[in-house]
Structure formats: structure tokens, C-alpha cells
């Protein structure tokens, strides 16, 4: 039986054309864990996405929207995986009026390509989840991943102004708009951010952009212990300084506890703030390691993913606690180091969000990940497993305990995708 059996191949072919329906070996590229789709489609535009979804809806096919593919480890394995819907060809810039400080792009555009476009106009889009080279706009919005720049610029929910959505049944709708301030009916784009594609496929997005600051600088500050670093971070957050990044790092590889601070703005203000940071560091007992900043920023840009971790044999996670509990959470994470695992973690102190990487044998990994989750939950927080070996995935639910409003979420899923064709089984319980 050919893998494509059960697919409406002729109809799909009529939509995308022969080179863009992948049914042979090429499907392996779209593997998620052990699951390989029966076919992959590479539509050219939003209209083709809608027509593909209409066919999948009719036949009840499980569809996985695919951006750069880098973050497909997130979530549970798909319950049904008939089609990979690869949005790479939706990579056009629809509209960029630099003076409006907004840009409208298709979902498959990579953050790197977006940065190149905006850079030519002295602008940037401060969405910086790892890794910029492969992450696509649509993928980043669907997973709601963020990076250290959220300290200054917020996350997708602060930056997205409008979305065009291809719905599970093949219809389309738009939400929001192209203006930076909008109180016109429901703020519907919020629904799709972080929804892992389960309420509809993001095909186009309008996001807010910012002028590239005329100057920037930063510091890496090494501390003898976590509490000294946390105290300085707290002091900095309550000062009038405006850091663009403020990360509390607990690096493996002997790099110890450090704070990473970056600053941007007019040169006078950057210089002033850099001095202030150096003074705070001296008072807090920290040691400046300015020369390491470029290398550390590169590492952080990939973290917790990274070239030095073999994929599939470590646990990559993200979590969150109240801002006030950030140092306690980092201490708890550090506490698993004795359990036959090595641990690295970074916290965005202003948001109370953390991410990290555990490495070690399967059994130790399981126990360490559970311990970190229990600690964070003990502080009223949560832990989500981003990547893990199958044994760990089996042992602990990647999403953790569901929220109290789960029943509303389940009803929304039912209303937007009653046939459960979009990423079936991958998100929270019954979503």
C-alpha cells in the first residue's frame, strides 16, 4: 500500500502542482518523533492553504502546519498525521511602510529574512526566539516562543497587530488590523498566539517593528553565588535603567552564575547606563566579563537548543514563576545537578520565565525533569517539556497540569476545529 493511499492525491495535486505534493522519501523530512506523514504539501499562497484544508476537512485528515520545522518537537506526538502543511513558500513581504512602523508578511518568512528586510530601513522586529535562521514568523507565533528581548519589547502578544487565518474547514478570516492601536471588536489574534495551530493556521501576520537603536552595549557579570546575582537583577529592575535584555544565567561547562545585561538607545544614555550597571555589579560583588558578551549572546540566541547538544538525548524545557520567585526557581533547577545530570538554565528576570537544558542518562533525566517541574509547581509555576527522549515523554506529560479554564479551551477547539484535523492530539488534554 503506497503511503499516499487514503489521500485525495489527485485533488491535492490539482491544488499545489506536482513538485509540491511530496509522497516519496521526501516525507521523511517531516518526521515528528517516529511519525511520518502520508504526504507533504508545499502550497504557494494562502488560497492554496485554504483549498488543502477544505479537502483535509472533508476527509478528516490529520494536518500538521509546518514552518521551519525546528520546533516540531514541542507538544505530544500527533494522534493522526496524514499531511504536513509546509508553509515555506509563503515567504513574501506583503506590505512594509517604514514610517508606519509595521510590517505585514506571510507566515513562512524566516525571522532572518525579516531582519534583513527591516535592517535595510534601520528597523527590527524584536521577536528573538531561537534560532533566527530557521524559525518562521508563523511558527514563532503559533508556539509563542520568545527570547531575551522580551525584557524590553514584550512577546508576540505585544507585537502582533493582525493575523490572517486559514481555518480547519478551509474558510479564511482576518483579525485585528494594520494599525498600532485598535479597539475594534474582539482582539481575535490573541486566540491563535501559542495555540500550536489548533484553532487555525496563521498564514499572514502584521507585526509592530521598532527603530534600530543608534547605540548598544552590554555586560556579562560573573557572580560567586545565585543570591548575589539575583539581588543585583532585582536592583536593576527597580532602577530607572531600561535594559533590553536581563538574563540570569546558570551555565554548565564551568561558566557558573552570571547576569547578562544589554542596553540600547542614544549613545549618551547607553554610556550612562553601562556605568551604572558596572557600579551595581561592583556593589553586588560581581566581576565584569565584557569580552565574553558576543559569544554569550550567540549561545543565548540558540538556548536551550544549541549545537553542542545532540538532539533527542537531553531534556529542553521552559517554565515560569512569579518574578519575585525567579531566583528561588533557579536555585531549585541548580539543585538537580547532583542527580547524575548536568543542568543549564537561563531566566528572563523581568518576566519570571525560564528555560533550560538537562543532559544525562534516560532514567536520571526523567527524575531530574520531574524534580524541576515539582519545584516550579511548588512555587505556583509550571514547566513545559520542549524536547525529550521518548522515555521521558512517556513518563511525564510534556504540558504539565492543565489550567482551570481548560473546558473553555476545549469548547473553543470544538468550535474552530470540530473534526480535530489541525495538530490532533498534540496540545493540552483534548485540545
Amino acid at each position, binding site marked *: 500500500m503506497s503511503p499516499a493511499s487514503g489521500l485525495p492525491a489527485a485533488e491535492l495535486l490539482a491544488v499545489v502542482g506536482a513538485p509540491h505534493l511530496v509522497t516519496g522519501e521526501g516525507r521523511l523530512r517531516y518526521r515528528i518523533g517516529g511519525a511520518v506523514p502520508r504526504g507533504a504539501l508545499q502550497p504557494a499562497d494562502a488560497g492554496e492553504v485554504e483549498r488543502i484544508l477544505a479537502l483535509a476537512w472533508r476527509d478528516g485528515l490529520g494536518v500538521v502546519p509546518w514552518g521551519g520545522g525546528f520546533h516540531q518537537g514541542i507538544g505530544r506526538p500527533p494522534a493522526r498525521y496524514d499531511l504536513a502543511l509546509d508553509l515555506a513558500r509563503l515567504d513574501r513581504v506583503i506590505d512594509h511602510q517604514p514610517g508606519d512602523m509595521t510590517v505585514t508578511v506571510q507566515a513562512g518568512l524566516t525571522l532572518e529574512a525579516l531582519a534583513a528586510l527591516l535592517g535595510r530601513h534601520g528597523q527590527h522586529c524584536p521577536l528573538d526566539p531561537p534560532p533566527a535562521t530557521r524559525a518562521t514568523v508563523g511558527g514563532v507565533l503559533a508556539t509563542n516562543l520568545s527570547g531575551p528581548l522580551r525584557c524590553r519589547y514584550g512577546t508576540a502578544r505585544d507585537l502582533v497587530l493582525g493575523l490572517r487565518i486559514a481555518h480547519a474547514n478551509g474558510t479564511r*478570516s482576518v483579525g485585528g488590523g494594520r494599525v498600532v492601536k485598535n479597539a475594534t*471588536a474582539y482582539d481575535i489574534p490573541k486566540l491563535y498566539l501559542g495555540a500550536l495551530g489548533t484553532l487555525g493556521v496563521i498564514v499572514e501576520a502584521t507585526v509592530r517593528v521598532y*527603530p534600530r537603536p543608534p547605540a548598544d552595549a552590554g555586560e556579562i557579570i560573573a557572580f560567586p553565588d545565585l543570591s548575589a546575582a539575583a539581588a543585583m537583577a532585582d536592583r536593576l529592575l527597580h532602577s530607572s535603567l531600561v535594559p533590553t535584555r536581563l538574563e540570569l544565567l546558570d551555565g554548565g561547562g564551568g561558566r557558573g552564575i552570571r547576569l547578562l545585561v544589554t542596553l540600547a538607545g542614544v549613545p549618551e544614555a547607553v554610556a550612562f547606563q553601562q556605568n551604572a550597571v558596572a557600579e551595581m555589579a561592583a556593589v553586588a560583588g560581581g566581576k565584569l566579563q565584557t569580552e565574553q558578551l558576543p559569544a554569550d549572546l550567540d549561545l543565548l540566541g540558540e538556548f536551550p537548543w544549541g549545537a553542542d547538544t545532540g538532539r533527542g538525548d537531553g531534556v529542553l524545557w521552559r517554565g515560569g514563576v512569579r518574578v519575585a520567585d525567579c531566583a528561588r526557581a533557579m536555585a531549585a533547577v541548580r539543585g538537580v545537578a547532583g542527580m547524575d545530570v548536568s543542568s543549564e538554565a537561563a531566566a528572563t528576570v523581568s518576566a519570571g520565565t525560564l528555560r533550560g537544558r538537562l543532559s544525562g542518562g534516560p532514567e536520571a533525566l526523567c527524575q531530574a525533569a520531574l524534580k524541576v517541574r515539582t519545584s516550579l509547581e511548588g512555587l505556583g509555576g509550571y514547566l513545559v517539556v520542549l524536547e525529550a527522549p521518548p522515555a521521558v515523554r512517556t513518563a511525564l506529560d510534556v504540558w504539565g497540569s492543565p489550567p482551570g479554564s481548560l473546558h*473553555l479551551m476545549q469548547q473553543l477547539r470544538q468550535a474552530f476545529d470540530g473534526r480535530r484535523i489541525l495538530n490532533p492530539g498534540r496540545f493540552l488534554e483534548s485540545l
Partner: protein
Amino acid sequence: MPMTADTPHNAIPIALLGALREIVGPDGVVSDPDELRVYEADAFAFQHRGMPGLVVLPTSTPQVAEVVRLCARHGAAIVPRGAGTGLSCGATPRGGEVVVALTRMTRLLSLDAVSRTATVEAGYVNLWLTQAARPYGLFYAPDPASQQACTLGGNVAENAGGPHCLKYGTTTNHVLGLTVVLPSGEIVRLGDVVQDRPGYDLAGVFVGSEGTLGICTEVTVRLMPAPESVKTILAIFRTMEDASTAVSNIIGRGIIPVALEMIDRPTLQAVEASSHAGYPLDAGAVLLIELEGLRAEIEAEAAGVESICREAPCLSVQTAQSEAERIRLWKGRKEAAGAFSRISKHFYHEDTVVPRTKLPQVIAEIDAIAARNSVRVASVFHAGDGNLHPLICYDGDVAGQMESALRAGSEIIHYCIAAGGAVSGEHGIGLEKRDQLRLMFSPADLEAMQKVRRVFDPAGGMNPGKIFPDEERGAER
């Protein structure tokens, strides 16, 4: 005051009245027609008024839940209400509903200075929060013009903005979590002080839903460190084009003021006539620019702004040297609406938003629309984010003038949407702009919203008739 024919006053069943009194106490139910009249409109009493059947004033989340459950059982529609300062009739009854006013729920529940968050009850007044946070060096950023009266619950319902949201964003950017009583009476927590929990962003969708998805009873917000320094600059220009050039160059240089307000010629003439703010009468536009942040940053940016204005060119530019001077520079802007009530019998306060670079062409078109409809239109803008507030002046006692004003308003909205704008920048839709939604959204776009609405409120009893055009409201009572 002209009115549309609203649904007639519905009789509230005696059993419901009695049961509500039992929940909230006798002083928590208003049923006297004279007292009810206070609740028949919000601050936009231009077209719509409606007498509520009853007003209920609960004092806790469980009371709200009981009230909502009871109303659901009796099939009584509910209109949630804060201070009633809204500008699109979001809290205006159509007639006969039970108004649930949150104005007795005014407690500050917690303020965590380390996490920089606060949780308040829905009736807590916006300005109180900044006052409560000040001793910790913190403040609450969204500052709608009505901030001395408006409530956080109302701010959540309307996604309120304010002159300073150019830099800090609107209410949605500052809300972390909500306690909500669903139309079924169930109490749920949406969002959280712990950020990025997995799941759909229900708090994000709830903000700006104008009371149609449930009643928000508690709000958890982000607080921000108070800025070290503030600078206020006022520049006067010969023409609107020169002022627009200055705005473009300020933004283009990467300067993001907290406020960037533009006042057009008719407005500055009206202000000058009523309060002598010191504007030259031949000026074409006034820009008010406020910068907030680090002293070193603000000094450099203020110098940049001054030179950009001079190059535009401007007639004059001045920077406030003291708090008293700062207040004086803001005086003209703050008194704009008041000045109009002195020179025009009635005015209609429009709210729309366009991509910022479209402002000059929109301004020119507004002049043409005003001339075509023989009305005076004066505009103040949040120029930095393209949000316009044309004030359409008319005399309601002269036959046909109100119709002309309405027509001019509608033409302005049409033009702004065609220019890539939105129906409302910050006032919301309510009853006022329901029929304009379709200019911006297709039936499929509205259907996505209705799906959300039906999940939260399958019976359609929560603030019925608001936001959506009549044909879209199948399930509503």
C-alpha cells in the same frame, strides 16, 4: 437630545427582585425609576439611552456569580458596568436589562512590589492604582482621559488606551490575569501573574470584549518603574503638513515619545477663544510631545525633537522647565473638548485610527468632508499612533444638522478604513459603531468572533446587542 427607539422597558419579575436583594442586600439593588435614570447612558449619550430594569451593586466575586446565575435562570439579560465613562455605549442598556455595576468592588487586593504586579477588584479606579504604587517607585501605565473616575474593570472591557499609550501600550499589554464570572455564573481565572502558561490566551481575548463574554471582577496588572525624568515640548507650526513632517522625523529617528499629540487649527482657535493657552491664531497646528525615561536619554531626545521641529520648520518650540510649565503646556490639549462645548451647542466625538503615514491625506479629506456636509470638524490626534478624534460640531436644534454631523462622521470612518485604518482606536464599538464593523470585517471575520462569543455565552444574555451588527446576533435575547 435625539434618541433612537430602544426596546421598551421590561418588567423585572418580583421573584427575581427579591432574590437579588437577598444576595446583595437591600441597599445593593436600585429599582426606583429616578435612580435608575443615572444608569441609562454612558459618557457617549449622543444617540442611545435605555432604562435598565434594575441595577445590582454586588460587593464580591461570589455575589456577582450568584447574581449572574440567578439572572440566567430567569432569562434576564445583563449589562455589566463600571464608572459609565465609556464613549461607545458599551454600558448603555437597550432597555429592561439588569445592570450589574461593579462600583462597590473597590478593593486593592494585593500589590507585589518585587514582582511589580497588583491585583484589584473591578471597581477600583484607574488613578488610584498609580497613587497606590507610587511609594514603591512604580506606576500603572494606561491613562485614559477619564482616569480619575474610570475603573480597571471598565478599562479591561474596553481595552482602554490614553495619551501615554504610544510608548507603553494599551490595557491589553498590562493585564496579566483576570477573575471572570462567566454568563453561566461560573467563576474562572483567565491568564495569570505567572506568564506564558500553555493554553489559549483567554485573558487576551477577554480584554476589549466589552462585557459580552462575562463580567470581570478582579484584574491583575503589571506595574512599571516610574521614569526618572519627564520632558514636555510644545511646538507651533504654520501648517499641518509641517507638523506632520516633524512627527514623521521624530518617529523616523527612533524616538518614541510617551505622548505625541496634534491639535489642528479649528481646535487651537477654539481653545484660544475659551482659555487663552497662548496659541497664535494664524498657526496651522500645535504638537505636544512628551518624553519619559532616563534623564540622559531624555535630554538627548529632547534636543533631537527641538531641532527636528525647527527644521520642519515650526513657528516656535518651547520645553517646559518646571512642573507648572508642563501643566500649562498640556492645558490647551486637555481643554480641547471643553472649549468646544463653549463654542458649539453639540458635538459628536469620533474615534478612528489610520496607519500613521496616512495622517496628512486623512486630515485633508476630513476638511473636504466637513465642507461637503456644512459642519465644522476640529481634530485632536494621538499623532504618534495614527489615532484621530475628530469633533464634529453641530446645533441639534437646527433641523438636519445632527444628520449632517452623523453623515460626516460616517464618511470619515469610511475614508479611514479605506486608508487601511480601523473603526475604533480606543473607544470601542458598543452600540455606536456596530453597523460600521462590516466596513472592516467580512461575515467570516465576524463569525470567528461569534464562535468565541457562543463558547462563553451560548444563551447570549451578556450585554446583548453590543459590538455586533444586528444580523450577526442570532442567539441573543
